[in-house]
């Protein structure tokens, strides 16, 4: 019988609604990060770097890009005869179809997949997070504590603790209580959504909980049930960089941290590489009159203009006379001459024409979605065309094959949205 000590299950079906237009056509784990990567690359790389060679990726929302990206797992060395990476979309069972209705429900629906590998332990991960973690150390801790479940926790400032799932622990770091977003937190140990379970125990709890909660969730149901059952749950303290880039602002911020001279998240470590899927690796080029400072450039990007404090994805072209500042420009996008981009996020394969201005004017929150776009960042969705001579303000959203006539005298004032549906090219 096939046997793996530990296998990992990555929850990658999230929509990431607070990322607005960035997740219009793809799941949050497939959003690019740090120029050449997609968010899921970090957990996939952590898995293989921690010697975990059997990984299930649970997809649901807009899985196409994610499926293409992961393929058979070649970039992560997860193309294996046994194990490797398996994409696990929801499927129809006898008599009924079922979407994944909760994080634990998604695992419940894949019990058979896990049983194939007959593992001692199952590592549950989220495909949404950016961090570097050696799961084998966490597993060691799990064994040493003789735990039924171990939950990785981050010490957060107590005044921010009410945003997180908080673990209240005893002096041995055994979890005695779990509170989801408590109003008055009694501890600052926030769950990172990384769990190791003894598989036999988890399987039993999943089956049990399914009777009561058809939308079973780890934070809401499974962990409280296990605490109630007096199972041995321990907190594993993690003290390094970890980011859930859940909002436009935090996504932008986390990208910008990478251009610091000594970034808090180090991509340049030789023995903990992050892997991604690129179809080819042409070099970066910086032109004769170009000026590039405080920026990172990915494979095949070419800069003939000015790029300051920005993150460029692969194959991006910034033409002569264009200036990009404090921005994220994703793979395959072209910015033509004379354009000036400030504090914006331009998604993959966009075309920004000549003499376009983006990100100037007053900081007025977006009228339609003020909760998503309000920190001054203008976002351009994927495959979007912005025609020559257009002026776009702050907190704007632009999407689709836009023409000059779609703008009001060539202007999109701060806080306005221009989203052309059904014109995807």
């Amino acid at each position, binding site marked *: 019988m096939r046997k793996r000590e530990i296998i990992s299950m990555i929850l990658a079906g999230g929509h990431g609604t607070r990322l607005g237009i960035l997740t219009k056509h793809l799941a949050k784990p497939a959003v690019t990060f*740090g*120029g*050449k990567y997609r968010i899921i690359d970090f957990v996939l790389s952590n898995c293989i770097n921690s010697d975990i060679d059997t990984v299930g990726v649970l997809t649901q929302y807009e899985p196409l890009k994610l499926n293409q990206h992961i393929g058979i797992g*070649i*970039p992560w060395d997860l193309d294996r005869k046994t194990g490797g990476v398996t994409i696990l979309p929801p499927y129809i069972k006898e008599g009924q179809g079922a979407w994944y209705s909760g994080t634990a429900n998604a695992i419940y629906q894949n019990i058979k997949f896990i049983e194939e590998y007959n593992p001692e332990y199952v590592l549950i991960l989220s495909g949404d997070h950016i961090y570097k973690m050696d799961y084998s150390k966490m597993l060691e801790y799990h064994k040493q504590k003789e735990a039924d479940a171990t939950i990785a926790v981050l010490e957060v400032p107590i005044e921010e603790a009410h945003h997180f799932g908080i673990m209240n622990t005893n002096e041995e770091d055994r979890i005695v209580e779990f509170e989801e977003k408590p109003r008055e937190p009694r501890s600052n140990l926030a769950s990172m959504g990384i769990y190791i379970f003894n598989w036999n125990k988890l399987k039993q709890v999943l089956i049990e909980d399914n009777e009561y909660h058809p939308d079973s969730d780890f934070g809401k149901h499974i962990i409280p049930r296990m605490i109630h059952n007096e199972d041995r749950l321990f907190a594993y303290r993690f003290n390094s960089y970890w980011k859930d880039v859940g909002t436009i602002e935090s996504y932008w911020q986390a990208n910008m941290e990478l*251009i610091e*001279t000594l970034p808090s998240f180090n*991509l*340049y470590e030789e023995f903990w*590489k*992050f*892997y*991604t899927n*690129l*179809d*080819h*690796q*042409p*070099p*970066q*080029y*910086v*032109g*004769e*009159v*170009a*000026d*590039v*400072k*405080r*920026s*990172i*450039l*990915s*494979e*095949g990007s*070419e800069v003939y203009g000015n790029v300051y404090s920005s*993150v*460029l994805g692969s194959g991006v072209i910034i033409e002569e006379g264009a200036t990009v500042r404090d921005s994220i420009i994703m793979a395959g996008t072209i910015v033509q001459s004379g354009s000036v981009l400030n504090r914006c996020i331009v998604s993959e394969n966009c075309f920004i024409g000549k003499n376009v201005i983006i990100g100037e004017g007053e900081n007025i929150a977006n009228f339609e979605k003020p909760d998503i776009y309000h920190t001054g960042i203008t976002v351009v969705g994927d495959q979007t065309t912005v025609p020559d001579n257009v002026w776009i303000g702050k907190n704007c959203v632009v999407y689709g094959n836009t023409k000059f006539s779609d703008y009001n005298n060539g202007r999109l004032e701060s806080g306005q949205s221009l989203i052309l549906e059904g014109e995807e090219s």
Partner: protein
Amino acid sequence: MKALGIILAGGSSETLSDYPNKSIAALPVGGSYRTIDFTMSNMTNSGVNKVAVITQYSSRSLLDHLSSAKWWDLGRKQGGLFVFTPYITNDNPFGYRGTADAMYRNISFLKRSNEPFVIIASGKHVYKIDFNDVLEYHQQKQADITIIYKEANYEKPSNYGVMVLDENKRLIEFEEKPLEPQTNIISLGIYVIPRTLLIKLLEDVVAENRYDFVNDVIIRYRKKLKIYGYPFEGYWRCIRSIQSFFDINMDFLNKDVRDLFCKQYPYIATKVMDEPPAKFNISSSTKNCIVGGGSILNGYVENAVLFRKVFTGSYSFIKNAIIMDGSYIGNNCYLEYVVLDKEVVVSDGRKLVGSKKNPIFLEKGSVI
């Protein structure tokens, strides 16, 4: 596919003339690639699914580069990548004694195949070609052997095989590195030949203790066989020395060359190195440069090709330089017309100035 490929990548003529320990096929080109990537990619992009690389001198770095076939889509059950190094038997204690011998010693590879044609190429050329066009031409001419040629412009014909062709492009004369070339038509050392004919010719010449494909097959059989020339007009360069290595890398600063190899489909494939993006810190200034992934720049760089994981310190000045993977240049250095091999360390404050005709070369791992 109708053809299989053989890449001759490790004869003594496949090392740098001025640094005979360096195998040309494994030399880095254009910030991301190794020389052999161009020929490998030409083959796979033309639908050749079975490729043999034959190598013997200084092959360690080449074998490292070819350690996985998957980057060229050659990790296959049908066909795939074969790497042949010489092995010694009781009745044959030699390495490969020439290009014909190298192929003859692997003749079972040819005999066990069923592709009607063989494309023989070299691992030291930088170019892009669709071999399907050559195969079509070969069949149209009903040729026995087709040799790809170009008209020498900047090349010195006396460094190449010089061909005389009739008006139908049939080969009349062939002279290897003649002192007084009759024409400016030079052989690129790339051939198409039917597999069964190649097997027969190799068996015949080796039986007479002849081992060189050019001298003992092409020149000897030039009249007996129908040998035709196929004109190639695009960018083609051959690496021979540090000077030509320097010039070819510098060519990649030219947009047309970069576009040809890096932007126009089909792409040149290479081993994936998974370096993070290149980083340009606040004190850096970069003009007309290729910068490979994982590099971190703090100084001034102009007209240079920097490969992967290069570090330049603050207040360093680098101009007209080729710097290979993993080299480290400290603070306040001054480098002009230099070629740094891999993992060279230039200590703070060093000054190295070569000339256009004679760039300074520092070997792998040097610390100065």
